[in-house]
């Protein structure tokens, strides 16, 4: 499989691409935290947050609407928040009948719902920008610098490395199933749902054994190459002055946002 089939990194040369991964991870989390801390209905401040996001988009040379186009992934989840439309007491806006309930949308409920969706939409875009401008191994390395236990970061690094190998295994299994699932024209192919699920279960079991045995071989190969329980890196990240300056200015801007949101 081509190595970048899962990769969300976009090769480019820009200010954001050159920033230290640690700074980018910290700022992304800070931006999400800042959105979460803003009170409901702080529309101007939400707009200012969005400008910060657009500014970051522009600096990344990927296009102003780059993250916007990819930001709809979190939208289906907004369905669960629909219930707040009816649950918060306030002035009724409109009432409609649904199954056995009379549902009234209140202004307070609408305010809360829109705020939740905006927060989520802003947050997911910054996370998209982070992976689009930072190679995944660099993100993992940054996490290690940020005191995430090295065992976890190493597992994630391994996951990423072998994901492509195991995805190939999955595609082989799926192709084999496809090849054996011939159907005569006009006839329904395949057995019952339970039977199909069992086929997938057998495939999962097969995949488990292949992965388990592969991990043994990987371990032996690592031992043969002098593995002592620690991963070495040849890419020590260094913080430059531009990283510190960016970090300080961005954090200051977010603090101002918080103040503005509470005026």
């Amino acid at each position, binding site marked *: 499989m081509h190595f970048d089939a899962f990769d969300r990194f976009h090769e480019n040369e820009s200010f954001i691409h050159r920033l230290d991964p640690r700074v980018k991870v910290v700022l992304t989390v800070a931006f999400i935290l800042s959105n*979460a801390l803003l009170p409901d209905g702080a529309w101007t401040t939400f707009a200012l947050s969005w400008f910060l996001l657009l500014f970051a988009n522009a600096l990344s040379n990927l296009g102003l609407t780059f993250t916007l186009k990819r930001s709809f992934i*979190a939208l289906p989840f907004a369905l669960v928040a629909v219930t707040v439309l009816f649950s918060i007491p306030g002035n009724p806006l409109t009432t409609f009948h649904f199954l056995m309930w009379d549902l009234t949308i209140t202004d307070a409920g609408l305010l809360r719902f829109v705020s939740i969706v905006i927060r989520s939409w802003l947050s*997911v875009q910054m996370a998209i920008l982070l*992976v689009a401008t930072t190679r995944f191994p660099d993100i993992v390395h940054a996490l290690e610098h940020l005191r995430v236990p090295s065992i*976890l970061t190493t597992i994630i690094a391994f996951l990423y490395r072998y994901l492509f190998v195991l995805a190939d295994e999955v595609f082989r299994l799926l192709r084999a199933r496809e090849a054996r699932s011939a159907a005569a024209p006009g006839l329904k192919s395949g057995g019952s749902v339970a039977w199909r699920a069992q086929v997938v279960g057998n495939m999962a079991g097969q995949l488990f054994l292949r992965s388990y045995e592969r991990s043994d071989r990987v371990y032996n190969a690592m031992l043969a190459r002098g593995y002592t329980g620690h991963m070495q890196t040849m890419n020590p990240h260094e913080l430059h002055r531009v990283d510190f300056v960016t970090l300080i200015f961005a954090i200051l801007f977010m603090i101002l946002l918080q103040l503005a949101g509470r005026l």
Partner: protein
Amino acid sequence: MLYSPKPMHIPDGFLSIIISVICWAITVSILAIAISKTNKSLGEKQVPLMGVMAAFIFAAQMLNFPIAGGTSGHLLGGALAAITLGPWAGMLVMTAVIATQALLFQDGGLLVMGANILNMGLLTAAVGYGLYRSVSAKSDGTRLAVAGVAAWLSVMTGALFTSLQLWLSGTARLDLVVPAMLWVHALIGLGEAVITVAALGFILRTRPDLLGEQSVSAQGSRGWVIAGVVIALLVTVLSPLASADPDGLNRVAADLGFINTAHSGSGPLAGYLVPFLANASASKILAGMIGAMIVLAIAFLAGHTLQKKTQTASNNK
């Protein structure tokens, strides 16, 4: 096409700061124990084993089977990971999977990752492993049947805790989000159960040593049984209670300072909650327990059939 988002992954913005922080605190403390435990039991081998097995769970989630009308069932893997690798290693593997889904695919948020890991990685592993371990000395058929129930309940546990966190954050209404999430995941859980049982059955037929008493998977102590059973019981009691008596839970949450009392049933809409309350919550809990027992019975029957199949398969060799 290669990666499709799954339900239950909470995005950023849907949980309040307080709930996010509490979930992170629980998750971090459990993970700290898990790290020290796997360090002792697996040593330097833990990195390649858990790393590749995390990739396995990730890849196994791509396996799907068509159900009807364009929907498809697939694996979440929490119970399977805990049963095959042991509870602590299973938790670390699931944590790595959920972290990668959030970091690489934005499936689930960063600030709320603590809650996502807790719901889909830690609770699923505890329920899945605890229930499975309670019958570890029994026959293969019983073990498979219980593994199926455990897998189903692990999905329900994750769904219930997800909806409770959403409700405590003021993002969803209790009496709507709990039944909705539980119904959807009752179906998803069936797929999870069948795939988990079939995968375990396959491993039992081909490499029984991996699930034997000497393997890493058998290193959890009896404490897991208690933890698993307690969480499972909690879910069985809490699920019907949440839909039958939302006001009661709302009051508890308000007393604990989680939600604003103004959110509970004092508004102009409080009236239409009454039909729900008309059903006594006790009878609903009873109904939930009877339902759980029926599922258990079906799973036992299915397990016995599977065991017969396994025996005929090994006799034919």
